[in-house]
């Protein structure tokens, strides 16, 4: 592949302290140079349309690719197609497949599927416990050797403090984070929505915010005890944010992520515009405005480390049922970036460079994977953003195999122009088809 020189865009690369107009030279799938007015020297020059931003490839550290076992919802191929369309050059996939990713065989299978698809990078996350049953540790060294970058029993919290302690201690040996879906199962019970006024009037069983924060506090205490790193997945409750701030202040190794739906939506979506819409059923549930505002505050002040989607595809058959019976989860890969622009950057809640920390720098740091910067010599994983692009969300046109999104029809400002992995353009938005990116 000939070398390519990208010109005419603003480069936002917080890891290297760059935020301004620079040229980016891509050679042999790697970033060769980033600088002002680089000479063409035989490389093909790509003059980008005005107003675009070049940033390190975005990394979604929380997705469900459903393969193996639930290919009717998503496959590694369709999930990574959705990822690159959403601007993500890499995704980390959760182990709650069928069978569970608790051994090298499953990890290897996922990685082979990812290589076949050859779109986004895929970083498998292994199970904490065998079968995610919360009883016996999975073979964590084997998982790491096979390519897993962290461990989690996502979907199922690690039920006992003892097993969580052991997981933090053991995974600490490999400097792997333990990612926790924090939820006290006894407080959750058979809840399906955030406990509060909305659930009360709609007659839905509630899940209080403290079901999350109780376990977050437990895990933070255990991280402090063991020196291990805990990452709080899809944080939704303001009490959990307080717990994270407490842990960080004490020097515990705790990080956390928030999903776009938890910083955009509230539980008022349960009743309107579509009452009992199963596309607003997810776990953790949409919480109330005070929780949503707390998440925005945490994103703004640096308490939140990462924006991750918890992309959870489900077949429409599975969602076309009673609210109680529908599975939890919504897709997120193809809506996240537009929601971030529209609800975080344009209103001035986070800066552009902070957004790149949330979507690229910090996920790479927490998972200890390459990426997150445009340093010379690094693989050319690059996302080209179109901050002012008018976007109308269309579930029908999504690459994901599943269409379970509550954002269908939303009009947002900001999107993806192109996604480049290993120097190869793996996604180009039709709006920019003439730009030869």
């Amino acid at each position: 592949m000939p070398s390519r020189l990208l010109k005419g865009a603003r480069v936002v690369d917080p890891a290297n302290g760059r935020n301004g107009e620079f040229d980016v030279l891509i050679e042999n799938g790697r970033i060769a140079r980033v600088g002002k007015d680089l000479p063409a020297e035989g490389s093909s020059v790509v003059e980008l349309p005005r107003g675009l931003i070049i940033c390190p490839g975005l990394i979604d550290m929380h997705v469900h690719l459903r393969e193996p076992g639930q290919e009717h919802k998503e496959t590694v191929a369709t999930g990574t197609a959705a990822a690159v369309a959403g601007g993500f050059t890499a995704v980390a996939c959760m182990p709650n497949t069928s069978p569970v990713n608790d051994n090298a065989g499953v990890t290897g299978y996922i990685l082979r599927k990812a290589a076949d698809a050859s779109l986004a990078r895929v970083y498998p996350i292994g199970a904490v416990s065998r079968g995610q049953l919360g009883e016996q540790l999975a073979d964590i060294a084997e998982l790491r050797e096979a390519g897993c970058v962290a461990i989690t029993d996502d979907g199922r919290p690690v039920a006992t403090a003892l097993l969580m302690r052991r997981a933090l201690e053991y995974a600490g040996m490999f400097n792997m984070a333990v990612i926790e879906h924090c939820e006290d199962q006894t407080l959750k019970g058979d809840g399906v929505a955030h406990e509060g006024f909305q659930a009360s009037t709609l007659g839905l069983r509630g899940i209080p915010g403290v079901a999350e924060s109780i376990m977050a506090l437990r895990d933070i205490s255990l991280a402090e005890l063991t020196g291990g790193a805990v990452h709080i997945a899809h944080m939704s409750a303001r009490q959990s944010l307080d717990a994270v701030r407490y842990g960080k202040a004490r020097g515990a190794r705790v990080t956390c992520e928030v999903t776009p739906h938890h910083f955009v939506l509230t539980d008022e979506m349960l009743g309107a515009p579509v009452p009992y819409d199963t596309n607003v059923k997810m776990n953790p549930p949409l919480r109330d405005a005070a929780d949503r505002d707390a998440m925005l505050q945490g994103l703004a002040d640096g308490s939140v480390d990462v924006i991750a989607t918890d992309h959870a595809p489900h077949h429409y058959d599975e969602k076309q049922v009673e609210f109680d019976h529908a599975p939890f989860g919504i897709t997120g890969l193809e809506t996240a970036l537009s929601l971030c622009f529209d609800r975080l950057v344009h209103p001035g809640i986070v800066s552009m460079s902070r957004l790149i920390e949330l979507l690229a720098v910090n996920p790479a740091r927490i998972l200890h994977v390459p990426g997150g910067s445009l340093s010379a010599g690094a693989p050319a994983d690059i996302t080209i953003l179109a901050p002012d692009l008018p976007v109308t969300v269309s579930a029908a046109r999504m690459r994901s195999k599943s269409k379970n999104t509550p954002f269908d029809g939303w009009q947002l400002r900001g999107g993806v122009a192109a996604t480049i992995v290993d120097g190869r353009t793996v996604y180009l938005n039709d709006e920019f088809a003439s730009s030869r990116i």
Partner: protein
Amino acid sequence: MKKDLLGIADLSPEEIYQILDTAEAMREIGERPIKKVPTLRGKTIVNLFYEPSTRTRTSFEIAEKRLSADTLNIAVATSSVLKGETLADTAMNIEAMAPDMIVLRHASSGACHLLSRICRSRIINAGDGMHEHPTQALLDAFTIRQHNQYIDRLKVAIVGDLLHSRVLRSNVLLLTKLGADVWLSGPPTLMPPGIERVGVHVTTSVDEAVADADVIMMLRIQQERMQGSFFPSLREYFNVFGMTAERVRRAKPGVIIMHPGPINRGVEIASEVADGPYSVILEQVANGVAVRMAVLYLLAGGVEEGD
């Protein structure tokens, strides 16, 4: 009226009064020697019941028959539900046979909204999960009005398992829409969080709720709630929250005592209260037929007008 009756939440006070006034006329039909009018002749109504129900199903069926509708009952035990068919598929299959209305009782809140989105037939909610039971609240209002001239000047106390009760939610919406002063009482473990935002008083003191009340509405306690640690024992529940003869003696003269049934004697209500002079429990059952006739008539009327 709208296409469906999904809940009291969708009704205006005018629509509520229209139903209650229409029910007055319907009640008269039930007092005739031949209790049948041709109003809904040629209309097909499916009673689709996913939960066991004696009172509500019978009441709807009698109401439908008195209006000359063709009715059929699908109960969970005899339906293809056991073969794993989804609610949406069952509904679409019934739809394919072109009924005019579907009366749905279902254990999941919002089940009627799901049907409403996929069916042309008019949907009547006969109780969905913990959400609403609109015809129960309407028949309760009808009964209250038989004993009191105005609903908007009344103090109504509702006591019992508020959390799991669809009757509670429909009654709270209806009574507050009509301007009643509504007091809720029960153990804190069985109160829906945030319910006071609807505009009701909430107290754990039954005596405070009942003091000077014109209407006392008791809600059923499911015996299995003890397993969920909602309260320690049925005996303690009765002692703290039960409607005892002693409590009724202290109540306002002329108070009426209601219960949507089925009653647990000696749990939420003492037998001598349920069978006593202030109890209107069987009147409620009788009025249920008239109120459901009114709802069916008004919804079908919309069909005839071409909608």
